[in-house]
């Protein structure tokens, strides 16, 4: 069953002057447990697509159904709550809260969700262990390497038990060893816990690991290849 269905999605900038189509009539669907890369040259619409999927940006037309909910019809406040409960984000530049420790950064989303302390502690530890940072729970981001910070970001994205994780160029700011390590962790989470990952990326290593590669050009899907 599809957890995400995109129908005729479009995003037009400067609609009234010189219209620029960032996305132009995209139809796409994702199933639970996919490990998908969205690729394409700069300006092809990868990031716009991810922003739409994450409910961070509103489309000019079309629908995005997530687990049966059309998120394009949600109001700003409802979208924030929807994101918190359904979508995990991993950003290119980690974006951890610098004043909080690794544990607190991961725990933060669960606190927003109102999860009780005991459950939070248990899940935070499990998540940080699963990304190989069980020893760094009380370390602040500035004492962690880029790779470690991004692994905390993955743990944070998983904390809210989202339906899927959106990762925008997750390896762009990492050295090759850290990138490799991060990809292995995400692949393992996908394989063992059936967590859905959707990446936008330029990185060939990410593309190589992906089991499905969707290629965008000029806001349109030019290929959609699944590897088995």
């Amino acid at each position: 069953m599809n957890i995400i269905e995109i129908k005729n999605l479009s995003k037009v900038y400067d609609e009234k002057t010189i219209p620029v189509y960032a996305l132009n009539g995209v139809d796409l669907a994702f199933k639970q447990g996919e490990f998908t890369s969205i690729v394409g040259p700069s300006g092809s619409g990868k990031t716009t697509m991810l922003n739409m999927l994450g409910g961070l940006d509103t489309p000019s037309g079309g629908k995005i159904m997530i687990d049966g909910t059309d998120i394009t019809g949600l109001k700003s406040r409802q979208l924030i709550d929807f994101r918190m409960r359904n979508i995990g984000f991993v950003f290119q530049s980690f974006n951890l809260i610098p004043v909080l420790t690794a544990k607190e950064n991961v725990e933060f989303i669960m606190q927003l969700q109102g999860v009780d302390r005991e459950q939070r502690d248990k899940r935070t530890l499990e998540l940080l262990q699963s990304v190989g940072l069980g020893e760094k729970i009380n370390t602040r981001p500035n004492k962690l390497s880029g790779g470690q910070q991004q692994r905390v970001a993955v743990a944070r994205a998983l904390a809210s038990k989202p339906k899927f994780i959106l990762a925008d160029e997750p390896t762009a700011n990492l050295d090759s060893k850290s990138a490799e390590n991060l990809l292995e962790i995400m692949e393992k989470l996908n394989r063992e816990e059936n967590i859905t990952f959707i990446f936008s990326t330029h990185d060939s290593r990410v593309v190589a690991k992906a089991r499905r590669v969707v290629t965008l050009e000029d806001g349109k899907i030019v290929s959609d290849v699944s590897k088995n």
Partner: protein
Amino acid sequence: MIFKIAFKNVWRNKVRSLIVITAITLGLAGGILTVSVITGMVEQKVRSGINNEVAHIQLHNPEFLKNYESRYTIPRADSIARIISGVSSVKAVCLRSRLTGMAASPNSATGVQILGVDPAAEKNVFTLYKAIPDSAGGFFTGSRKNLVVIGRKLADKLKVRLKSKIVLRFQNPDGNLTEAAFSVNGIFQSANTMFDEINVFIKKTDLDRVTEMDNGIQEIALIANDNSNIPLVKAALKSKFPGLLVQDWSEIRPDMGMVTTAIAIEVYVILGIILFALAFGIVNTMLMIVFERTRELGMLMAVGMSKSRVFRMIMLETIFLTIIGGIAGMAVSATLVSVFHSYGIDLSAFSKGLGAFGFDPKIYPFIKPELYINLSIMIILTGILSAVMPARKALQLKPVEAIRIE
């Protein structure tokens, strides 16, 4: 959690936060110290006025105060004084004859108020005797007759010294003029040079002897055992003696009453202006913080932090910053005020001017404890008001744009 993040965020850029905190501390310390000096001056003026000049409450024949005619005495003053002594919360009472007259020395002459007093009773109510320096005699020391205690200003005006003779000329209650020579027994120097210039004290027994009559009592003065009991005592005396004019110190000396009320308002105006100015610095700093953290705030909103939580976080950060500065400011101020209160600030270089307005040249800064409570509320309000603009700015951020900002 929001609370924790907000508090930790205050210390994120320590130098910048410390600059803001230092600005608040210095601003408040300056303001509070200024206020304490003004309050100290006024308190001293009022205290000195009460202790040396008017006491807490005075009773007069209502006609007397119109023209200070000594024939308007208080009938049966002795028994009234006994009744007053029995009123609860009254600490001490004294009776005074008050006549208008002239004081003359071989060099000069001037109009004065002559107070015929019982020195022992007078000392129970007034502390003017303490304003006589050791080198300037005493308050009716020795058993000689016709002693007079005068103020330093009058002594200088008449060019007389201790033990000099001055002639007092006055009109009795029966209308006759009398004059007699008195020996200067003590020279007092209160904070109020005008008071020192026009009031002379003689013993009531000497007054009655030289006038060969009982001059009666024109004034009854009393002090309560506590300032807070003055209204109660005044009300009790008004109902007991409806034929007499019962006034408290602020009615007798409206200037003192007025300055006390004015200063209570002025204190808050001064501190309000300082906090208002500081608020601009706080707003500026918090706006910088919001701009600097645009991406982080965008991320927080992206991952599900509601706008109201973001708003609250920025509000809390601003309030924490302000409160920390406020506490530091109040602590530094309390220390400074306490040190200056112990040693006093000597403004004798300006004492001529100050004395003319009844201010003591040595000021002991003082802050009423309730000011710190009210100031704390004002500081929190400043924090809240300063936070609104930066917090609103944070709300205007769109996560999709904010997370892209480098």
